[in-house]
């Protein structure tokens, strides 16, 4: 159990050498490797965490994009629906307008046809009435129709309102006193004298009278200055007849429409 002091010294040296060698070959490399590994693993974990966060962000942004697209799609659909609805309404109103225009055109043409028809009817009817009246009057009383017409015309002249008479007088003075008497028939000498006497009595003695006939006048007498006209004929009866016929047609239409 002795202690050999040289051995103690040698063992101290051995131990210190061993400490140095192990520090060089064991602790240094191992500790460095452990630190490096820990650092590396921590870095990998951090990287993984980072990637995971990135992926989550990416996922969130993609979800948002999908939502946006879906919203946009809904908007477009709604917009398209609205546009189609508006277009439909527009087309409907357009069609209604067209129909209305066609109907108006048709109604106008119908009106025109009706007017034309009434015009023709009036002329034909007037002619027929005049012809028939003339024939009937001639057969019944010979020249009495003309005489009667002359008398009626003279009555008209006599009963002419004073302002009319004044106007005609004035007109006569302007033109130098010539008066044109137009009749639908040839007046007898007697009738001419009666009319001349009557006119001269009423408008002045120095009047010059000229007599003409015209087929366009319907059984009447017309008194013409340069600017005035005094007329009486069956045409006025025919005009009232025309009105009566028009009213009759309108009533007929109303009853048909009802």
């Amino acid at each position, binding site marked *: *159990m*002795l*202690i*050999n*002091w*040289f*051995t*103690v*010294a*040698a*063992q*101290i040296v*051995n*131990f*210190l*050498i*061993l*400490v140095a*060698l*192990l*520090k060089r*070959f*064991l*602790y240094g*490399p*191992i*500790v*460095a*490797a*452990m630190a*490096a*590994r820990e650092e*590396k*693993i921590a870095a*990998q974990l951090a990287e993984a965490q980072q990637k995971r966060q990135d992926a989550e962000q990416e996922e969130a942004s993609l979800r948002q994009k999908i939502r946006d697209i879906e919203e946009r799609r809904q908007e477009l659909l709604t917009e398209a629906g609205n546009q189609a609805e508006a277009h439909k309404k527009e087309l409907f109103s357009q069609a209604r307008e067209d129909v209305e225009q066609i109907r108006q055109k048709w109604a106008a043409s119908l009106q025109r046809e009706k007017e034309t028809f009434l015009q023709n009817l009036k002329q034909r009817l007037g002619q027929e009435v005049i012809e028939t009246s003339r024939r009937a009057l001639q057969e019944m009383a010979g020249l009495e129709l003309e005489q009667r017409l002359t008398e009626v015309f003279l009555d008209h002249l006599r009963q002419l309102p004073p302002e009319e008479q004044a106007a005609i007088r004035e007109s006569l003075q302007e033109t130098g006193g010539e008066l044109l008497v137009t009749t639908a028939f040839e007046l007898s000498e007697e009738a001419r004298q009666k009319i001349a006497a009557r006119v001269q009595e009423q408008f002045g003695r120095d009047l010059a009278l000229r007599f003409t006939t015209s087929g366009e006048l319907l059984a009447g007498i017309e008194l013409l200055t340069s600017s005035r006209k005094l007329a009486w004929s069956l045409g006025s009866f025919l005009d009232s007849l025309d009105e009566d016929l028009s009213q009759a047609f309108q009533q007929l239409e109303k009853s048909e429409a009802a």
Partner: protein
Amino acid sequence: MEISLDNWVLWQQGPVLFNATILYTWLVMALLVLGSWLATRRLSTDAKISPWQNLLEVLVGGMREQIRQISQQEPGTYLPFIGTLFVFISVSNLLAVVPGYHPPTDSLSTTAALALCVLVAAPIYGIAQQGLRGYLSHYLKPTPLMLPFHIISELSRTLALAVRLFGNVMSGAMIGAILLAVVPLFFPLVMQLLELLIGQVQAFIFAVLATVYIASALQAHEETREEIIKTPAEPTRGGEIPKEDEKT
């Protein structure tokens, strides 16, 4: 009782001699250095590592953790010294299973040498940490009157620890020798196992006591010691299982 390794002299020239203790110490040193060199030659820094690297990482990591817990200090500076104490004693005792091998720790010269190393290392670490003035001023607190008592305290603690280390190592060899003498035929295998266990316990105790002693030489060592007494060191993760309770 075996022959002391110190007396097994292979070569001598005056006071310089070469005995079996030194021979076996060199063998252990060569084994340790070679093994370390082979294992750390290709260290991997990836997640996947070789089994040898794994073993060494567990060993070194466990020692670092033990030092950190006992000394309440970062283990970087103390690891080579304390770690080498542990590894050397541990491997020396572990190789006892090899026939023809004699652990150098069986020699009192070796244990005395290690105790002296610890004795010197403690003030060196204290001075390295606090500087010479800081370390010496520690002896004058709280008043210069306390200086003799501080010195006596340090010396007695050092002596006590050294003797305890010495006694631990010696007792292991003694117990083994006595038991072998008592039951030479029936328990050789059990004795070998017991020997291995005692060797590892000795290694651990030696390292822990060295740590405690160095820590006590550092600043605030009073609190540190109290904490160590309250919370004994936990087992290392992997490696040898400490059994210090019946010895300390």
